[in-house]
């Protein structure tokens, strides 16, 4: 009995010491005033130095939290219980959040730096007039391939993914809209197709790709490509950039028929308790120099035109990640198709996956 009580006492003592250490650390971290904002962002999606810079500049302490999926983030915001002032949903999620009435309309007079955003990325179908959101990063869906492991294919067309020489070499992302999307694109249909007939045609075509598919996986693909264990992958531009920086043999291409153009966007949720602070934070992140530093740290493409001049030319002139306007014409932004159609996509994708051997 004595032993048990002693053990309990030791544990309490250790926890107390740790709590004290924690308190010290937190105090050291947040030297700024009592004003705070809570930012909810994707993991590794901001340069931590910028948070410090913002705290010093504006005297507002930033509580920074991370999430790993749009759905998880929306779930927490919908339930409340924590006061997020700024968050970064993808385009379809902006639309869903708007429909659920989770967002505050933006007052542009408080965000003068919005003028630096490329007009091409404003006023998009998922949020006309940018009433609720401002683009944060953008990218494309395309093909990453390792030229040294292949026989000279260049993947200018989605059709080349069906090529018999790729037997058991292709890796797909585990995401219904991306995978069905390539089939829709190759047939010349819209990525936002809701026609059952078109979808049926697309999945029928997709099934003939079956023998080429080695695996349908998530983020692990980056490591497989880097290690030369896989030769072709359907992936997002940011992931491809990671692969390229590690392995020179890898290239990334967006096929000519077109593809998906995606956005992650800054929004202010209705749960915000410090709207003024949120505006200051957004305006700060849109500052050209800040945006440039952030884009170099994160590695995705920035929509901030003024930022491009502050960035390394090797990055901004790379048309694989900053395609010119001509190339962007073929790209299509996802729309929220509604639960019912999304269900159809998921079901068709599941059927495709089950058909794989």
């Amino acid at each position, binding site marked *: 009995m004595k032993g048990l009580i002693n053990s309990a006492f030791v544990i309490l003592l250790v926890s107390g010491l740790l709590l004290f250490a924690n308190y010290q650390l937190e105090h050291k971290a947040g030297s700024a005033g009592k004003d705070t904002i809570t930012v909810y962002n994707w993991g590794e999606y901001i340069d931590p130095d910028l948070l410090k810079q913002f705290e010093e500049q504006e005297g507002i302490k930033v509580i920074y939290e991370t999430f790993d999926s749009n759905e998880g983030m929306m779930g927490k915001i919908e339930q409340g*219980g924590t006061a997020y002032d700024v968050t970064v949903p993808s385009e379809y999620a902006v639309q869903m959040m708007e429909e659920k009435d989770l967002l505050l309309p933006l007052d542009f007079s408080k965000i003068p730096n919005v003028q630096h955003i490329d007009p091409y990325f404003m006023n998009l179908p998922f949020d006309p007039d940018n009433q609720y959101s401002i683009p944060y990063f953008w990218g494309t869906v395309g093909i990453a391939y390792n030229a040294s492991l292949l026989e000279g294919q260049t993947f200018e067309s989605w059709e080349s993914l069906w090529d018999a020489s790729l037997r058991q070499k292709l890796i797909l992302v585990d995401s219904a809209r991306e995978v069905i999307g390539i089939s829709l694109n190759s047939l010349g249909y819209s990525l936002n197709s809701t026609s059952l007939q078109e979808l049926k045609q697309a999945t029928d075509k997709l099934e003939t790709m079956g023998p080429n598919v080695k695996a349908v996986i998530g983020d692990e693909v980056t490591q497989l490509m880097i290690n030369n264990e896989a030769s072709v992958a359907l992936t997002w531009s940011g992931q491809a950039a990671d692969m390229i920086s590690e392995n020179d043999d890898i290239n990334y291409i967006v096929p000519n028929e077109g593809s998906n153009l995606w956005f992650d966007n800054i929004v202010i949720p209705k749960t915000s308790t410090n709207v003024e602070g949120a505006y200051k934070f957004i305006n700060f992140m849109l500052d050209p120099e800040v945006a440039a530093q952030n884009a170099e740290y994160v590695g995705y493409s920035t929509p901030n035109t003024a930022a491009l001049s502050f960035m390394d030319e090797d990055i901004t002139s790379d048309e694989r990640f900053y395609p010119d306007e001509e190339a962007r014409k073929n790209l299509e932004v996802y729309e929220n198709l509604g639960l019912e159609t999304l269900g159809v996509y998921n079901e068709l994708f599941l059927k495709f996956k089950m058909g794989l051997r």
Partner: protein
Amino acid sequence: MKKLGILPKVYLAAVFVILYAPIFYLIYYSFNSGDGMSNFESFTLDHYQAVFQDTRLLIIVLNTVIIALLSALLSTTIGVMGALTIYFMKNKSARQAVLSLNNILIVSPDVIIGASFLILFTLIGVKLGFASVLISHIAFSIPIVVIMVLPKLLEMSTTLIDAARDLGASRKDILTRVILPYIKPGIFAGFFLALTYSLDDFAVTFFVTGNGFSTLSVEIYSMARTGITLTINALSGLIFLLTIILVLGYYIIGNKAKSPQGVKK
């Protein structure tokens, strides 16, 4: 004790290699000066330095450990009392019912427990953060402690209690001098299991973190989208080292207690 033949030895070695290889692989690359796990460039301690410079990460690590220790301690206390209550229940069918309810909680999916807690906390207006994480970790650890302690109680001969009573021990004496010392290994097993459950739980914790309070598992999952940096390798290495030290310490203390001088009081 019979000596092991060569085959069982090889088998045992193979099992340990498989269990430990991934961890050592991970730690090996934490010393890599390159920024990936693909090829080893040269030796560096930069990533360890980065761990200690990243205050946010350190705060999260401390949070994780504090939550683990406190939730394990509290759930062990509550769980032991629960196990004793179940043990002394007169009504057999009631006892069976309580035990089944306890077991249902062990097998029910974490996601569901997490989502229910989120709804409960927002309903009664508990702010998400330290308290909500602590409460939910205590909650999912209690059934585990109960299931670790109960077999020890059932294994204990009832004559032990009868004898103590015959010798004039009070109820309190029976509890503190007979039962608790007897089930002590079960209590510690329950505590350590609760500790590890709390340390690596993601599903429940994801739902109940908020207001700047986060734990390591949630943080690493969020990082996975853009690839996990070698800083996490370094951190994992440090935590692994700490665990080994703790286990060794526990082993040494345990051996001392068993030695003749340290007769239990």
